[in-house]
């Protein structure tokens, strides 16, 4: 019998399985079986891990394959033309790309300051007993499905903006240069601004919770030193907490941005689905995801479908880059905290 130097322990394990320990052949067989099972399970788990990579690869291959017709037909013009005409079969992606970027920009302009301020409140000002409940409440916003934001935006927010906010904006900025073009046109209620607002609410919890976590990770001794010098809460937050947590905050913001860029249903409800770029942010527009959601099942003809898939590919590439940056930054923060 070949010695493994671990016989007694093996016997215990074998007994645990009800094997007869005296029989060498049976013992070897059991050992071999265990080894085989272990290798099988090892490979099974590794296969599942590799499957995650295969999924990503598959998504990219499928999108490129699906959009190949549009890519070969329009070439790079696809990225620069505005026309979106199913009748003449001329498609260009610039209007949805523009809409995606502008709605996300509006969302970030609102959500980043709000998120930072809420995180500041939760880490520096809020009474201990309220921190958890308020934190959970804000995170519940992230749990609400995006379709709910959509229906709420369409029936509640858009009419409210149409009646109360947009006329006021048009009135106030109507004679101011630049701003008058930004708020030009009739108040539809739905449009780019409304979509940006909804997106802001949706990404707020992501930004808030990550920012809060990195704020909390700032060593108390740094803050105490600053307080000891006589700094106010604001000065400590601005000069100590924020610089220390900068990388994590940017990571959180990028994560929120990735969400905003790819968000579909909520935007589809309130964007108005107009394939044109207008200078006014209260005018209807479209985003990549909204175009796909609105038109894909109704698209007639290969080139139309292919163009929509090409839009999906562009969206995937943009969000992939943004999310990769976010994850890279957040991983850096985690490593720093871990060491």
């Amino acid at each position: 019998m070949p010695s493994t130097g671990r016989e007694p322990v093996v016997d215990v394990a074998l007994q645990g399985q009800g094997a007869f320990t005296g029989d060498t052949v049976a013992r070897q067989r059991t050992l071999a079986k265990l080894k085989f099972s272990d290798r099988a399970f090892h490979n099974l788990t590794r296969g599942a891990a590799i499957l995650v990579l295969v999924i990503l690869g598959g998504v990219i291959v499928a999108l490129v394959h699906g959009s190949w017709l549009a890519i070969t037909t329009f070439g790079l013009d696809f990225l620069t033309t505005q026309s979106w005409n199913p009748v003449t079969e001329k498609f260009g992606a610039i209007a949805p790309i523009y809409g995606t970027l502008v709605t996300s920009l509006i969302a970030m302009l609102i959500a980043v300051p709000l998120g930072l301020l809420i995180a500041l409140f939760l880490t520096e000002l809020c009474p201990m007993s309220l921190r958890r409940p308020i934190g959970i409440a804000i995170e519940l916003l992230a749990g609400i499905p995006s379709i709910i934001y959509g229906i709420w935006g369409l029936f509640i927010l858009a009419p409210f903006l149409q009646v109360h906010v947009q006329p006021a904006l048009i009135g106030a900025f109507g004679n101011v240069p630049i701003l008058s073009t930004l708020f030009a046109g009739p108040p539809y209620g739905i449009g780019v601004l409304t979509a940006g607002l909804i997106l802001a609410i949706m990404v707020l919890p992501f930004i808030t919770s990550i920012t809060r976590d990195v704020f909390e990770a700032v060593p108390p001794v740094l803050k105490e030193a600053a307080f000891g010098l006589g700094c106010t809460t604001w000065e400590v937050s601005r000069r100590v907490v924020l610089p220390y947590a900068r990388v994590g905050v940017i990571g959180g913001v990028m994560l929120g941005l990735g969400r905003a860029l790819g968000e579909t249903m909520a935007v589809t409800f309130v964007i108005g689905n107009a394939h044109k770029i207008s200078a006014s942010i209260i005018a209807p527009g479209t985003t990549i995801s909204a175009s796909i959601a609105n038109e894909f099942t109704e698209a007639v003809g290969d080139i139309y479908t292919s163009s929509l898939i090409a839009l999906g590919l562009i969206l995937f590439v943009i969000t992939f880059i943004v999310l990769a940056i976010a994850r890279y930054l957040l991983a850096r923060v985690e490593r720093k905290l871990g060491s």
Partner: protein
Amino acid sequence: MSVTGLYASRRRSNTIAITLSVAATVIGLGWLVLILGVLFWEGFSGLSLAVFTEMTPPPGSAGGLLNPIMGSLMLTTLAVLLGTPIGILAGTYMAEYGRHARLTQVVRFINDILLSAPSIVIGLFVYEIMVYPMGHFSGYAGIVALALIVIPVVVRTTEDMLILVPTTLREAAFALGMPRYRIIMHISYRAARAGMLTGVLLAVARISGETAPLLFTALNNQFWNTNLNAPISSLPVVIFQFALSPYKDWQQLAWTGALITTIAVLALSIIARALAAPGKQT
């Protein structure tokens, strides 16, 4: 600037900052209250037994949401059954066999990206690989699309929870000569059970409200259907269709459906939180 003036201005900016951050929190919470308040108000006014017992109506008449509720339950259950084992196995590799492997680092990075990737792209992907070759929309395609969203969530929580299991537990089992796969199944899984269940519940919550990946996979079906090889109705897609319609009855049903979905999703995430609370401070 005089010393007292400097003090005053520093104090003033501090007061402004504090006021703003309190205001921001009030706005955040207010929005939550506003959304849930409207949802409950509009949703409850249409809630009746008929919602759970009748089919979706043609335009302009009353009806219920029985077929989309049933469709959503079927799609969600089967997607979780399909996605969870794959996610748990992948997470197991990352935390147990390959904790320091290069593959694990790559998979973790990619998985985190998939976790927040736009779900509409998943819909397009499944359309390309299933709906187009099969020639028709189907429940199966919807299940695969939702399962692809389940996997990253489960991978992430499984890995996180297994890493929290103390190494000494595994070493004790190793010392007894237990093979690795049995240690994982009998020691690691048992120790991390609550956390892994949390992950699955979060995944269920996530896909219960997902609309975008179903739009061009499972599509929709106005009639009772349990055949997964045909288009099948689901609650989020019906909400989408009905809310954008001009008919009052349909809009009311959309609100009621939205209420049902939200209650289900929030209940799931609160249960998941409660489960996770003793182990990890989330």
